[in-house]
């Protein structure tokens, strides 16, 4: 006499109202956590922009700092903006080719065991605190030679490399194997297949990886404190000596007793945040575009 279907007794046994409440609570907590995440970003951007807005003007980008200035002197942080451009630019030039080569080796050539081993090493490298990288580069290049833009850029590159490699690996793994086989089946050598068939598919993804890595290190202070922080006030583009940078300038201005310096620090922070937001958005945009391209070519 087995009864079929859900009986009234079943319904009572599982206590549906309580289940509904628990479900609602769970949903509420998770949503609240998401709101906290978004709110943090909004609060940080808002508080920085509010304090920096009134010092944010064209002089900030074009004028250099005037030491020991008293009263309203027109001055800016042109040296820091120029220095950051050089440091991040050099770090990108060091990272992108090496990162792509590592990723191509791991995805296209290495045995699976080697791939997972090296991937783990890259993840560990990614987790090394920036200040530890700074001390390493300090010991390697700065001791005995003095600070330089090269040392600072190298320290930034150490932080960029794992990000760059991992993101390139991910897009290489997205390229369908059938495309590689199509080329190899014609009797085309492996290196040519990678260069002409695989890599062109991944340019968008590689660009995204580079842009996100740039956004990540553009605001790094710690690696530059030991390697490229003893600087003058003039604009310099040569990496053979130490270069000023935005994050280090913000740090130094914030230690100053002059409220005008604080305002400039907030303004510089605003510029840095805008730059990072824009590069991240650009990265996301390129990523969605290229992912669509790869998926249609499957």
């Amino acid at each position: 006499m087995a009864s079929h279907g859900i009986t009234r007794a079943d319904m009572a046994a599982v206590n549906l109202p309580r289940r509904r409440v628990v479900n609602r609570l769970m949903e509420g907590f998770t949503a609240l956590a998401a709101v906290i995440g978004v709110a943090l970003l909004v609060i940080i951007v808002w508080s920085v922009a509010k304090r920096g807005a009134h010092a944010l003007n064209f002089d900030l980008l074009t004028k250099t700092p005037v030491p020991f200035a008293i009263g309203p002197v027109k001055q800016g942080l042109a040296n820091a903006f120029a220095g950051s451009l050089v440091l991040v630019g050099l770090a990108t030039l060091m990272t992108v080719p090496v990162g792509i080569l590592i990723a191509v080796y791991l995805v296209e050539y290495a045995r699976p065991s080697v791939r997972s081993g090296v991937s783990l090493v890259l993840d560990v490298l990614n987790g090394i605190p920036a200040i530890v990288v700074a001390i390493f580069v300090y010991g390697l290049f700065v001791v005995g030679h003095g600070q330089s833009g090269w040392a600072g850029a190298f320290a930034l590159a150490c932080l960029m490399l794992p990000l760059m490699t991992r993101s390139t690996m991910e897009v290489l793994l997205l390229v369908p194997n059938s495309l590689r086989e199509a080329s190899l089946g014609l009797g085309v050598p492996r290196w040519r297949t990678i260069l002409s068939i695989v890599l062109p598919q991944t340019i968008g993804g590689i660009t995204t990886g580079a842009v996100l890595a740039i956004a990540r290190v553009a605001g790094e202070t710690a690696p530059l404190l030991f390697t490229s922080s003893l600087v003058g006030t003039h604009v310099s583009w040569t990496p053979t000596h130490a270069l000023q940078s935005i994050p280090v300038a913000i740090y130094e201005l914030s230690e100053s007793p002059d409220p005008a310096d604080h305002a400039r620090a907030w303004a510089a922070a605003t510029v840095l945040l805008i730059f990072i937001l824009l590069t991240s958005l650009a990265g996301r945009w390129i990523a969605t575009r290229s992912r669509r391209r790869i998926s249609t070519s499957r």
Partner: protein
Amino acid sequence: MTEVPPDMSITIEPTVRVETRRQPLPPRDRLDRVFHIDDLAAIYGTKPAIKGVTMDVYKNLVTAIIGPSGCGKSTYIRCLNRMNDLIPGFTQTGTIRYHGQDITSSDVDPVAVRRHIGMVFQRPNPFPKSIYDNVAWGAKVLGMKQNMDERVEKALTQAALWDEVKDRLKSSALALSGGQQQRLCIARAIAVEPDVVLMDEPASALDPIATQAIEQLMHELKSEYTFVIVTHNMQQAARVADMTAFFSISKGGEGQRWGELVEYDATEKIFTAPSDKRTEDYVTGRFG
């Protein structure tokens, strides 16, 4: 509804009929051997895929490989141009002599092997390039740069695609239909002038009309190339192949399964008078 008379006995007829318009095959000793495969075994890691395959593939014929799923048909055909080299953990034993030269030996460059033994895959895989570049790229990379326009036109014509695409050679190959893409892949394979074209279930993702187009072009091109085609479609083998090899699954101790060659003969013989019981069961539809 008409009643079946109770005295009428049910006979199982062969489900596959062999077309008779094909030319009778000359005796085997008068055929040129392209491949001489001897005791080939292929292993993925510790799992055998095929064992003890010994057969010859003859020039300017279409050779079909049939058999149930998992009998190692694809593994076998991919051995013939060293495509399995790309799979980690793959090993093989035995020899594959291609015009007398053992292409399984480690000092033979797989790139050189594939240069002569082209391949068309199960799913159409055109490059994300224009129709023209799909056909021209391989030839260009391999140094055949002269008269490229003629080369592309010839390959597309042979693949029965020229009339459909001649006005839009510069548009993306990805905009073509599945059947057109597969014919483009065939054009791409023959544009580099291979000796043998291996086809791994080339029509399994296509509709009957596209399938017919591909079978037709194999029929027309076999005077220039040697085709080896893997198919799970027996009718297709009966329609296109001169020789047919039937692979089956053998079971060993500890749950091991591997594919082996059961019978290899003229297609007509395989489908009408197979000498092995397993072949008969398979081609009459009693199994598989």
